[in-house]
């Protein structure tokens, strides 16, 4: 009997891992990616190792991409989009709008949804002047710049003072985002540590609400960031950023201990923009007839963290909730496993 095929939506970490896992079990996989190339956000991240590996996992993404490209069982459709699904669990007909403008119909048995996330448009937090000041950037932009240019100085020139602002849109009821994006505290401090290894004298400040770091040795990491790297941790999110004086930035924030208003000058401000669901999540959810949660992420069932109310549709990665690379990988492996199990049994 010919094996059923698996459709993976999204070519980021979760999608690539899901595809590789299903292919490793001998299933043919269609990987549909909206962008021009697979890799997803994580492919653009920089390595954050200083003298030691910072365990950011960014280096694993090119390796995964290489394996997907090499795998003869995986057919990748880049610049493509799912536009309709018919049939039912076990035998779907998926219509895909490919990059050549054609519509292809794919027959698949199971679908893994791994459409990832969208960073919050930082401009929506008007007070941070993201759309007005070129030196206000997002964490993702910083990652990409360091990866491509090799260093912070190569990307942004002489910088003496850098501020990281956490929770830009996360834990923010004004945006309806009653959740923590989970990964920002870690990546911001890893980036700060990386920058410290390059700029020994720069002032580095992280503005935060609560420090959300988890794991066996992450607290040690933060401790060393504070003590060895002299990174300042300021509890409290700034109120406003001004493009002043010339070419620099003034950040107004309250000293959480004394309550007094402070204004400090910075050369570069890095915003940890919230991880939010992709625009088309809702559309996709109704197409596949699966549920989303109150924040607009895909909902999984209570005791099956990759399953949906559709037995043939599985969820993996940041499209379900904010996740780091290992967590996405892990969930993708589980999702692929569940999909394969569904198709075999």
């Amino acid at each position, binding site marked *: 009997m010919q094996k059923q095929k698996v459709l993976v939506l999204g070519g980021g970490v979760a999608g690539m891992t899901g595809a590789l*896992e299903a292919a*490793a*079990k001998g299933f043919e996989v269609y990987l549909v990616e909206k962008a021009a190339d697979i890799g997803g956000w994580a492919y653009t991240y920089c390595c954050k190792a200083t003298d030691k590996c910072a*365990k*950011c*996992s960014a280096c*694993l993404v090119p390796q995964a991409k*290489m*394996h997907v*490209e*090499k795998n003869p069982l995986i057919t990748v459709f880049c610049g493509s989009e799912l536009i309709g699904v018919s049939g039912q669990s076990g035998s779907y007909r998926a219509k895909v709008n490919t990059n050549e403008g054609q519509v292809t119909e794919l027959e698949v048995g199971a679908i893994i949804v791994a459409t990832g996330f969208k960073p919050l448009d930082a401009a929506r937090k008007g007070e941070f002047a993201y759309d007005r000041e070129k030196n206000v950037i997002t964490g993702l932009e910083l990652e990409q710049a360091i990866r491509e240019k090799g260093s912070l100085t190569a990307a942004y020139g002489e910088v003496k003072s850098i501020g990281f602002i956490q929770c830009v849109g996360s*834990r923010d*009821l004004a945006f309806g985002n*009653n*959740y*923590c*994006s*989970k990964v920002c*505290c870690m990546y911001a401090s890893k980036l700060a540590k990386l920058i410290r290894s390059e700029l020994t004298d720069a002032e580095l400040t992280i503005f935060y609400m*609560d*420090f*959300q*770091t*988890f*794991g*066996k*040795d*992450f*607290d*040690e990491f933060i401790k060393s960031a504070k003590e060895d790297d002299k990174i300042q941790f300021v509890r409290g999110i700034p109120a406003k950023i001004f493009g002043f004086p010339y070419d620099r930035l003034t950040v107004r924030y309250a*000293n*959480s*201990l*004394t*309550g*007094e208003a402070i204004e400090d000058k910075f050369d570069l401000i890095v915003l940890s923009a919230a991880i939010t669901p992709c625009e088309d999540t809702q559309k996709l959810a109704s197409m596949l007839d699966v549920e989303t*949660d*109150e924040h607009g992420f895909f909902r999984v069932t*209570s*005791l*099956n*963290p*990759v399953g949906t109310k559709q037995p043939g549709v599985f969820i993996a990665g940041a499209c379900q*909730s*904010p996740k780091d*690379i*290992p967590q996405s*990988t*892990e*969930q993708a*492996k*589980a999702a*692929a*496993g*569940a999909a*394969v*199990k569904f198709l075999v*049994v």
Partner: protein
Amino acid sequence: MENNTRIGVFFCNCNGKITEKVDFEPIASEVKKLPKVEYVRESQNLCAHLEGELICKEITKNQLNRIVVVGCASAKEEGFFKEVLNKAGLNSHLLSMVNLREECCAVHEKSAKSAAKALELTKMGIARANNLEEVSFGEIPVNRTVLVIGGGLAGLETALETAARGFKVILIEKEDKLGGRLARVNSIIGVDHNPADLLEEKVKAVTSNPTIDVRTNTKLGDLDGNIGGFTAWFVKDGVETSVEVGAIVAATGVQTIFCPVKYGLGIADNVIGQMKLERLLADGKDFTHKRISIVIGKGTEAFNLPFVIAVKNALLLRKKFNATVNVFYTNIKVGGDNWEKMYTDARGAGVNFFKFEDNIEIVANNGEIIVNYEDPFLKGKMPGVFKVIADYIVIPEELVPAEGTDELAKILRLELGPASFFSVDNAHILPEMTSRDGIYLVGSCQSPCFANEVEISAKTVAEEIFQKLDADQVSTELTQPYVDATKCVVCLTCYRCCPHGAITIEHGEQFKNLYFSAAQMNPLACRRCGICASECPGKAIQLPDYTDDQILVQLEAMEVLP
């Protein structure tokens, strides 16, 4: 074949990308002079399909048995040429790639120097080709039984998931019954089910499954072998029995340490930890209108589990009993899933949250508990010590690996990582993997985790095992290091150096040395790093595709200039 090496050299100009920097003619004419080079060809785009067929033909026509591809060396192309070799009936390991594009053309200008480098790189590749060896496939018989250690939620889930993939499962539990901590809690974060019902359901599913063999009061006493062929010795009531298993999952969980002395408190009914609170709640204790202080942080900072549990119970106490709940915290760690919402819900429901840095003092006074603390936010405006009175105090418990974790680690030959939890193999790749293939971790034994994370873990591990042991015979390319028994002095250096525990010392007449023994690398457990080969003092170990000869001839092919 050794005397009859016939090398074919295929140049790819990569649609001109290479030839715009390096001319092939002088290289080709040099190369042709080299011994054993029987065929040289240049083409526009070697990795095109048609070219593949052409190479196949040329291999057969010229009886070539070593192929050198001079072009680029990206992984994709290597895979393509290996397939071409296979199609031509050659072993795919008889291929030597010369990476002219990335190593020379893309990074140097056209010059005499870069031309010299290109020639040298080509010569190195040809020298390597001269020493290439075939690698065959092997069918390895494996045992498709999975041993699960620990009968808590993680163990039960893993047993069910692996059994569902057609494995025989042996589940051992050191206590007299299954359940672990699940049997002792009132509610589970992120799970709607009542723990008691959930446990009953899971235990029933496990015990009624004919392929799952549950053994309580049983511990793992010793372990031998490698993935697909472990021998495990169980100890039950002092009696040892052995079984053969193919994979092992440690799901031994955590334990909590309740230590009121750390907070200057003694043992009292109203001084409790979160585990005790769970128990009291499950037993239906009435907290109506009680005043309850909950402290979180201080020594438990590393994990978010205790924070989320504290918030969960604070909300529950507030809602169900209309209790006065004051939570003292250093950081609120509620990242992930919907826990932030739970936190805002708790605030909304009237749970009070107070931040403290270091200064907190808890005093028991005639059945009342007084918490004295300094509020860092108010320090500027309202300095001084605040006093909160409560009927109950819930203090943080330390989360440490389950008792016997270190002993188990020794038996499994795994290293323990930070805080003595099981160390995962390169943490950021996959938290379930260990340094040894065939041994996996599920649940809190590698780091305290939530029920839904346990579910994912169990599924991932079941999937991983299924991938590795999908049939009674596993076919694998025998690219693991091989041992020249005549040189092996069985010194154990490799055995001690192998980070993956993949090496065993085997005995038998087939080993033609003084000891009738030699080190052997298990093809399923070995990850082909070659550490053993470079440590071997007798130079008895060679890693296929990277043998000493293959590497040293490349050096020999280089020219020495004074």
